[in-house]
């Protein structure tokens, strides 16, 4: 198991460097941040002094080398906007996103398993068609529209939920619902499809012939074998949640990494952007390794290299 994880870590290092390089270069292609940070009436001398102070007067290659040197010493630079350490800002924001993403994913998986199994147990029934319609609708709704409509309906019109913020448990409902709707729709479809196949497999017929209850057939025999495709899709969706929390965090004032990144992009706050992207990339690599490890646990063929 550990050699497997070690192999995956080695193979993840190169993409990580490429991501950092890409973000560094693309960010600088968007232009000089000087105009954003100095008053519109700043003189040319003041602009030159700002560029010199922050290293923007150096060639890109020099800036890149300095940045990678800093990264090797865990120095990710200072925010132009706040003057704080960029890594402190990213680390402070990350748990909020992680909390949101983990809770959302757990709820989406539980919901998808229940609805997917229910639909697959009676294929083409009214329940199946209803759940298919529901899941396809959920997978297609734009999250921005859903969030704003949710605020209008549940906060303004009905007054049962807060519009936004992080005060109390009720404030979690709309952000999680917005973030969950797409994964729930997609996962429900996947679980349903996998369960329909599994429930018609010979081992399920055998289990039934041995007198196993419906619940046991579904939960212990069919669902276990339907888990692999669901795990694959859930992994991709979980990665998407970490990346895609931007809209939810911006609308609901959730102080997470997505909002931090979008603010950093708009403000050309390169150090914060790079730190946030690095942290997100590392977490995605860790997540991918965890998913692969789960595969390895489920399937010995993945765990051990093929021997011929």
């Amino acid at each position, binding site marked *: 198991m550990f050699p497997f994880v070690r192999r995956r870590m080695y193979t993840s290092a190169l993409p990580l460097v490429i991501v950092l390089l890409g973000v560094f270069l693309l960010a600088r292609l*968007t*232009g*000089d941040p000087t*105009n*954003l940070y*100095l*008053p*519109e*009436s*700043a*003189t*040319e*001398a*003041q602009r030159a*002094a*700002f560029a010199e*102070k922050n290293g923007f007067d150096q060639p890109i290659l020099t800036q890149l080398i300095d940045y990678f040197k800093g990264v090797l010493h865990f120095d990710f630079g200072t925010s132009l906007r*706040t*003057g*704080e350490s960029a890594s402190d*800002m990213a680390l*402070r*924001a990350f*748990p*909020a996103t*992680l*909390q*949101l993403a*983990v809770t959302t994913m757990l709820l989406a998986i539980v919901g998808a398993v229940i609805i997917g199994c229910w639909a697959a147990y009676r294929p083409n029934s009214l329940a199946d068609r209803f759940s298919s319609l529901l899941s396809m609708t959920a997978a297609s709704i734009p999250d921005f529209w859903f969030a*704003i409509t949710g*605020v*209008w309906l549940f*906060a*303004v019109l009905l*007054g049962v939920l*807060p*519009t*936004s*913020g*992080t*005060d*109390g*448990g009720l404030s*979690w409902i709309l952000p999680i619902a917005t973030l969950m709707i797409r994964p729930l729709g997609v996962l429900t479809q996947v679980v349903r499809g996998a369960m329909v196949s599994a429930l018609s497999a010979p081992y399920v017929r055998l289990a039934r012939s041995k007198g196993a209850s419906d619940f046991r057939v579904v939960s212990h025999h069919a669902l276990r074998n339907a888990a692999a495709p669901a795990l694959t899709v859930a992994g991709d969706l979980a990665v998407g949640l970490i990346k895609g929390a931007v809209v939810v965090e*911006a*609308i*609901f*004032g*959730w*102080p997470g990494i997505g*909002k*931090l990144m979008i*603010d950093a992009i*708009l*403000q050309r706050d390169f150090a914060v952007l790079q730190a946030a992207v690095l942290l997100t990339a590392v977490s995605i690599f860790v997540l991918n390794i*965890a998913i692969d*490890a*789960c595969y390895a*646990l*489920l399937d010995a063929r993945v765990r051990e290299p093929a021997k011929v």
Partner: protein
Amino acid sequence: MSPAPRITTRRRALAVAIAGITVAATGCTVANSGHSGYDPNTLRIVLSQEPPTLEPCESSLTSTGIVVRSNITEPLIEREPDTGELQPLLSTGWRQTSPTEWTFDIRKGVTFSDGSPFTATDAAFAIDRAVNSELQCNVDGYVFGDEKLKLSAPNDTTLTVGTESPDPILPLRISFVEIVPRTTSTTEMVREPIGTGPYAIADWEYGQKLTLARNDRYWGAKPTFARAEYQWRSEGSVRAAMITNDETDIATSLGPEDGAGDLGVPFQNNETTALRMQAGEAPLNDIRVRQAINYSVNRTGIVKALFRGLGEPASQLIPKGVVGYNDQLALWPHDTEKAKQLVAEAKAAGVPVDRQIRLIGRTAQFPKISETIEVLQSEFTEIGLNVKIEMMDTAGQLQYQLRPFPENTGPYVLMIMHGNQAGDAAFTMDQYMLSNGPQSAYGTADFDRQIRAAEALTGQARQDAFAKLFAEEPQQIMQMAYIAHMKGILGKSPRVEYTPNSATGDEMRLSEMTVAQTARTDQS
């Protein structure tokens, strides 16, 4: 058959471990953070963005100034928002003691929120730190430019400020400097300052909430609310929903379509929108084309249909109340036929009027900007010009707004929005009308001389000279097509009494907010 149960056990153990690590790592830091319920002594405010810093010398930044100015820190002199008149604050009086020196009388009995006394030494320190230091303070560039000041405090209640050349509006410039104690760092900016204002910072949960508490040492009248709690939401519709849902008392920067309804209070702000024409390139280097663009703009229609009446069609770059405003200047007429005729004349004279012109706008600069840009494109196309829309984010648009302008761009017309916070036309003229002004695309040496001459005047002569320049600019230069003096919308709960003014967007004085006598909130 023994391996199967073992794998199952390992899998379960892994799942439990991952769940445990996740909970431990996230630490439940977000849920319930700062939940305090409704408190009638707390004023709740929602802004469009978190202040990046509360450094007082950065208070020319809207997102910083709206919290800091006259709440946490105070200047020596404050400007009356609607008239621009200067009023005593930490300075009780001021006078010009020589052509290059002003003397300020410092108020006695004032202390900072940390208990240290305020004297002229602090005032000299704060101005020196903001203007002469290497901190690159926003207020330095915005108000003082390259100017260096000579400061001295001969005693605790007297401050003298020397300038390199005579400066008739030095007190106005000084009104932009927020005063901090002499113990403040001169090598680094501070995020959480000490000041003499009616409030002091109580708690700042970065990313979530900023709380100010009443400064019990405040020298002036005690403000009504014991605490002020700032939050921030980037979506205007969410800020408006917070007002209608009674989650906040004040919501800033709302648009007419955000849905605040009757709780949205319109107010005249300092901003004026205009199109700046880059007159260096054909066809915009021909004054007939620039005049045609002006004739084609239906200002009244834009204000009525797009801004829903939240604004006034503009004939100049400054609004009423700013020194130099010309109240006799009529709107440039909307005359499509005349515009077509001018374009045809220019074409006949060999001007390449069919060359593509870029119409550049900044996304979300003001409500309905996209629709405004589309209407303008349609109007320009109708008179025979070839116009392409380009919407950019702030950083992208600023490259075209500020010198040095990008090269080889082709002709472009830029949507700008100018706010004269100072209340004096010199700040506008220097920026947009001088031929080498940081935001000016075109000018003449003769007009530059007239601007400099006006800036040396004081009183009514100054007002008249600037008003004359605003009338002459379209005849001599025609760099701009003015659109509207804008209005903002402030969301206001019925429980709060407050009248927004033209400075509210930049400086929202909490001490002016009181509890409304006719309304109450029943939240608990």
